[in-house]
C-alpha cells in the first residue's frame, strides 16, 4: 500500500465527500486518504512512518471526536519522520485563539474551511499549486 498525496482527518463525512470531489476536480490522479477519527489517524501515520511512507500534505480538522486536531498536530510533530511534512489545520472555526494555538503547536498553515463547493475547489487548487508544484523541495 502506497502513501496518499493528501492525508485528511475529518469526522464530517459530508465535508470529506465534497472535498474528495474538489480534489478530483483540481487533479484527477491526486490520492486522498480520509480518516474519521484522531486515534485511527495517529495509528495510520505511525505505520506510515515505520514503512517510510510520507504523505505530501496532512489536513487536520480542528474539532474531532477523541483526539482533537491540536492533539493530533502535536503527536505528528513528535514523529521525526513526519517532522517536515506540511500540516494544515482545516477548520470551520475562525476563532483567533484557535489560530494562535495551531501555529504555536507547529502548524504550517491555518485555513478556515471555505463555504461551498466552488470556494473549496479554489482553495484546493491554491493548496495544490503551492505545496505540490512550487514548494516541491519539501518532498
Amino acid at each position, binding site marked *: 500500500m502506497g502513501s496518499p498525496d493528501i492525508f485528511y482527518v475529518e469526522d*464530517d463525512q459530508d465535508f470529506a465527500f*465534497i472535498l474528495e470531489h474538489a480534489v478530483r476536480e483540481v487533479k484527477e490522479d491526486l490520492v486522498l486518504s480520509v480518516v474519521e477519527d484522531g486515534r485511527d489517524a495517529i495509528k495510520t501515520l505511525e505505520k506510515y512512518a515505520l514503512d517510510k511512507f510520507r504523505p505530501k500534505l496532512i489536513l487536520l480538522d480542528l474539532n474531532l471526536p477523541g483526539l482533537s486536531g491540536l492533539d493530533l498536530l502535536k503527536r505528528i510533530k513528535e514523529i521525526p519522520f513526519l517532522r517536515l511534512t506540511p500540516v494544515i489545520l482545516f477548520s*470551520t472555526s475562525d476563532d483567533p485563539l484557535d489560530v494562535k494555538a495551531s501555529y504555536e503547536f507547529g502548524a504550517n498553515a491555518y485555513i478556515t474551511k471555505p463555504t461551498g463547493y466552488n470556494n473549496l475547489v479554489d482553495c484546493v487548487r491554491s493548496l495544490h499549486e503551492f505545496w505540490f508544484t512550487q514548494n516541491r523541495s519539501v518532498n
Partner: protein
Amino acid sequence: MTKYNVDLTNCDKEPIHIPGRIQSHGFLIAADAFDLAILYVSENVDFYLGKSSSDLLKMDALEFNVFFGSVANDTDLHQLLKLAKNQENFSIINPYKLLIKEEPYYLILHESHGKIIMEFEPATLEYDIQNLIGKSISEILSNKTLSGLLNHAAKEIKDIIEYDRIMVYQFLDDGHGEVVAEVKNDDLEPFFGLHYPASDIPQQARALYKLNYTRIIADVNAASAAIETYAKDMPLDLSHSSLRAVSPIHIQYLKNMGVESSFSISLISKGELWGLIACHNYSPKFIDYKAREGAKLIGQILSSALEYKQAEEETQEDFLLKEAVQELSGQLDKDSDLISSLIRHDVTLLDVTHGSGAGIFFDGHMYTIGVTPDEAALTDLFAWLKETMTESVYHTNQLPKILKSAQDYASVGSGILACTLSRDMGEYIVWFKSEKIAAINWAGNPEKPVEVNSANETVLSPRNSFDTWAEIVNETSDKWRELEISGVLKLREKIVSKINKKANEIRVLNERLKLAYEELDTFSYTISHDLRTPLTSIKSYTELFLHQNQSLDEKGKKLLGRVVAGADKMAFLINEILKLARVGRSDLQPVEIDMTNLVRELITEVVSALSAPQVKIVIGNCPPVMGDLTLITQVFTNLISNAIKYSSRSNLPEVCIDGQVDNEEVIYKIKDNGIGIDVNYHDKVFELFKRMENVKDFQGTGVGLAIVKRIVEKHNGRIWFESELGVGTTFYVAFKNK
C-alpha cells in the same frame, strides 16, 4: 452649741437639718434614748414651763411629770417613752395630748441618732378634722383630668386649713418650678402660670421635702429659740423635727414676697419630688398637728392619684404611638415598596412621633410627608447628618442653635429626630417638630438669685422682686419623648432588615442573571457553531450538484443559486452571532495597544474590503489603549468600517479618527460626514439586529455595534455618539487609563 455662720454665700451648702435652733411656737427637749438623761433643751422652755433650760439639763426625763397635767389620766412620761421604745414606733403615740398650765399641748416624739426628741406644740383644733378630710378626698378624686385633680386639691386644702393662698407647684425637667394650680383670696395677685427658677428651692431643701411630707413656718418674724446643750460638738439632727428653725435665707425670701407664714405639703410621684402644695399666709399662722396630718394625708392621696393619672394619660398616648409602630411594621411586611409602606397608607411615619412632618432620603430620592423644610434645606440637613451623626438615632429640640442654616426653617423644624438607614448612602429618616415660641413668665428675673460676688463665687440671694419677668424661648420645639425615640428605633430596625432582605434578593437575582447570561453565550456559541456545518453541506452539495449537472436548464440553475445565496446569508449572520457570543466567553488579556499602528493597518484593510478609496481619512492623535488586542481591534474595525461605509456615498467623504487622554480615560472619536442616524433610532443603535431605515442599501447585519458595545462594557469603558441625519455621525469610545 455650735454656731453656723450662715450668710448669703453658702445658702446652697447650708446644713439646714442641724440649725441648732427651733421655731418658737413650741419647745423641744431631747433625751438620751438609753438612760433618758436630758441632753438638749430649747431655751424657750422657760416661757412654757417656768423653769430655765440650764435647770432642765440637770434633770432626768423621769422627773418631768411634775410639769404636766393630764387630760385623762396622770401623764407618766417615763412609761410613755418606755412604751415607745418597746414598740420601736412612735406613730401609735403621736400626738400625745397633755396639759401644761391647763393649756392643751401635743407632745410629738421621734428618735434621732440615739436621742428621743420630744417636741411640744399647742393643740388648737377644737373639732374632729377626720370627717372633713374624708369628704375632701372623695371630692378631689372625682376629677377625671390631672388639672382638675390639682385645682380641686388646692381648693379643698384651702377650705380645711384656710391659708390666704394655696398653690400647686410642679417641678419641671430642668428643676425649675411652675404654678400649675392656684386658689387664693380675691384681693391677692395671681401667681398661676408663673415659673420659679430652680435655685429658689436648693437641693438639700428638696431632700427634706422628701423626708417630711409637711413643713410649717409659723411666723417669719418670730425670733427662733436656740437649743442648749453640753454636747456642743454634737449638733442635734432635726431632719424629722417639725419645729426645726428655718434657714435665714428662706425667711428673707418669704419676707421679700410679703409672706409671714407658710405651710407646704410634698407631692411625690414615682419616688421623686413631683411638686409641692405651697400655702402662703400674709399674717402669722399656725395649724396644729392634726390639721397638718390631715393635709399630709390629702397630699399622699393626691400623690398616688397623680402617679396614676399621669400614667393613665401617658399610657393612652403611649398606646397610640406603639400601635402606629406596630401598624407600620405590618405595612412594611405587606407592601414591597418601602416608601409606599411608610407614607402612602392610612398610618404613616407621622403617627410614630408627635412630630408634624417627616422626610426620607432613600435610593437617591427625597420623600416628605406632613410639614417639612423645603427640599434644598432637607438636602443640606441630610448632608450635615451624614457628616456628623454617628449613632443610629439623633435628636434635638433646638436644631437652629446647633446648625446655623436651620434658622431658616426654625418655624417647621426646630426639633428633629433622625434615624440612620445607611450612613454610606446618606440615607436617613428625619421627623420634624415645629417651633414652640413659648413665653415663660418668671416670678422675677430668674437669673437674679444667682449672683457673682467680689471673690468671683456664685452667690445665691433671696430675690427681692417677684414682678413677672417674661422670657421668650424661640428656636425650640417640644422635647422628644423617650417613647418617640424608642418607637423610632424599633421602626428603624424593621426598615433596615427590610432593606437588607431586598438587597440580598437583588444579589441572588444578579447572580442568576449572570449565570443565565453565561449560559446564553455558551448556547449561542454552540448553536451557531453547530449550525455552520450543515449549512456548509447545503451550500456545498448544491454547488456540487450544479457543477456535475451542467445540462440543468437556466431556471433550475437560478433556483439552486437562490439556495446558495440563502445559505451564504445565513452563514454570515451565524458568524456575527458567534463573534458576539465570543465576547462574553473570552477572558480579557489586557495589554498596552499601539493604536497608531493598529489604526493604520485597519484603515488599509477596511478601505480595500469596502472598495472605498474615495473616502479621505484623517488620523489625529492615537494614544495607546489598555485592552485585549483582539477585542479592541474588533471595536475599531467596526467603528471605522461603519464610518467609511456610511460616508462612502457622500460628497467629499471624510472620516476623522482622533484620541485624547482625559484624566482617567482615553477617549477616541470616530467622525464621519455620512448619512447620519435618525433621532428616533438613537436608543436602538446598539441593539442586536436593529438596522436603521436609511441603511437598507448598505450591507450589514445589525450585530456590529452590539458587539462593539459589549466589548467596551467588558473593558469597563463607555460608548456614545452624536449624529445628525444627512450631516454625519461621531462615535465616542472611552477606555479607562489603568
